[in-house]
């Protein structure tokens, strides 16, 4: 039942890479936001995995719950970011009727 820590870390790294890949290749703004969520969740997984590993070794710098608590905060941050991000996407959609990243061409990038 006990998943090895290395496996968790590898999964997190894969998730993170997928997130970066998605961010770089997709044009739809919603998907881009989703890719960012993926990256944040990779961080969550690493936090939790790290926390478990350190607890098993008895090493807990400060508090044993630092890792899981950080994950909770990351979930919070992700939610806030999604909220602001979607609001801005809606604002742009009202002006341009599109949610493609390319439609943001007003400013010479």
């Amino acid at each position, binding site marked *: 039942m006990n998943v090895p820590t290395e496996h968790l870390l590898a999964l997190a790294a894969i998730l993170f890479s997928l*997130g970066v890949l998605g961010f770089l290749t997709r044009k739809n703004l919603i998907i881009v936001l989703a890719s*960012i969520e993926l990256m944040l969740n990779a961080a969550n997984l690493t936090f939790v995995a790290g926390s478990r590993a350190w607890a098993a070794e008895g090493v807990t710098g400060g508090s044993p719950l*630092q890792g899981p608590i950080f994950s909770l905060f990351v979930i919070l941050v992700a939610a806030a970011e999604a909220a602001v*991000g979607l609001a801005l996407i809606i604002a742009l959609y009202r002006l341009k009727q599109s949610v493609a990243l390319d439609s943001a061409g007003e400013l010479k*990038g």
Partner: protein
Amino acid sequence: MNAYIEQMGLIAPELVLTALSLFVLTWDLLKKGRNSDHIGYATLVGLAVTGWLLLQQWGMLGDKGTQTAFGMVTIDRFGTFFKLFTVGSMAVVTLFVMLDKNERKHGIGEYYFLLIGASIGAFFMVSTNNLLLLMLGLELLSLASYSLAGFHKGSKRSAEAALKYIVFGGLSAGVMLYGISLLYGLTGTLDLGLMGHAPEGSGAVSLATQFDASPIPVAIAVVLVLAGFAYKVSVVPFHFWTPDVYEGAPTPVTTFLAVGSKAAGFAALLRFVGALFLTDGVDASIVAYGDRIGFLLAILAAITMTLGNLSALRQGSLKRMLAYSSIAHAGYVLMGAASMTSEGFAAAMFYLAAYYCMNLGAFGFLIYFEGVTGKDDIDSLKGMGWRHPVVAWSMVVFLVALTGLPPTVGFYGKLILFYAAIDAGLAWLVIIAAINSVISLFYYFRVAKSMFLTEPVPQVPMRQHGLAGILCVLAVVTVLAGLGAFKDPLRGWADEGPASLEIYATDAGSR
């Protein structure tokens, strides 16, 4: 309970700001979003109280920092230095918002609310050794900034700027968080002090120990976190959002992004690098690694300033030009960090203080000029110097300061930076920076040329006395600080910052 209240007393400035933000929001709701300068005045009063509290705190603090809120918040002179300047720049930005003719006056209370929220984020970000609080502060600052950038809902440019900002901001947050999670996984702590130096029985493993065992994950983690900071302070190659966001955002917001937000980012960057690599008692292996990080930062600094300056050359819009110039200045400040010495850090802090003065001035000029002409390209500045002499000559002072020529604080700041870099053996970087100053001369003085050396085009003279007054004061400060009138407080403060950082970090280790 008493101890708890005492601990809260240490974060009184932050609490005042939080109360102020809620007060402003409520008042705006009661007023139903009608235009009101009163909210602006209330904000200014709140900021003044905060500033006063910070000054008290500065006097109270010794060389050593102190921790509060269960060790999450670190109050030291390094952080207080940046908080003071955040409050100062906020006050000026508030005045800009009040005086900006192009600013929509409806719902202005939310504007102030978001600005204050952003500065609360900046406050926590600069005064913590804990990566969790640092991240939360950074996110609060960022989220408020995203909303501010898109504050002009009806404007395509504003909406687009905000969107670009949040998309790239989200990426950088993801990258940075992943880096932090790796650091946590490697060391078992979120405290930077313990990461730098973990004594026996502290329940953590120092980064140096882990670096000896497995250098590659440590390198990846540190570089990922640095990338997050690099985004915040717009260092190449994480700079590409800067010109677009600066151009599209409302100009007072741009001012805050270029000044307050960037300085807070640098503060966190300096603290991160300082705690991990600069403290006494860290192992030799990590110091050697720190030197490599310093070299990486030096290369980034060189590329950043060169690219920023070269791109600024091609800009027709004053706003975009200032955006690229702020990228170039990030490169100069990075020189101080790259030197990896306390002197270098102090120089970087002093240069940031100088940068506050001259960039607030330059953006204030931009707001004034947009209010007069409704445009932001350099060519429509023609002859402005003769129609609005006070503002224009003040701008010349800022331009001279930005170029780094005496008798302004820009020269003084650059001089100290150059010394620090040469001291750290980065003579090549100093030469590149000097060449860059020559390049920057081109585009900065294009503004002066447009204002004074070309004949005026007919314009409707619209004087804005309030803004002109602020600019004038800023210009005088820029010159006086350059002449050394404020040398003792400012230099002293900047010098004490890294000192408190260093001592604190060692102290945390032995706890």
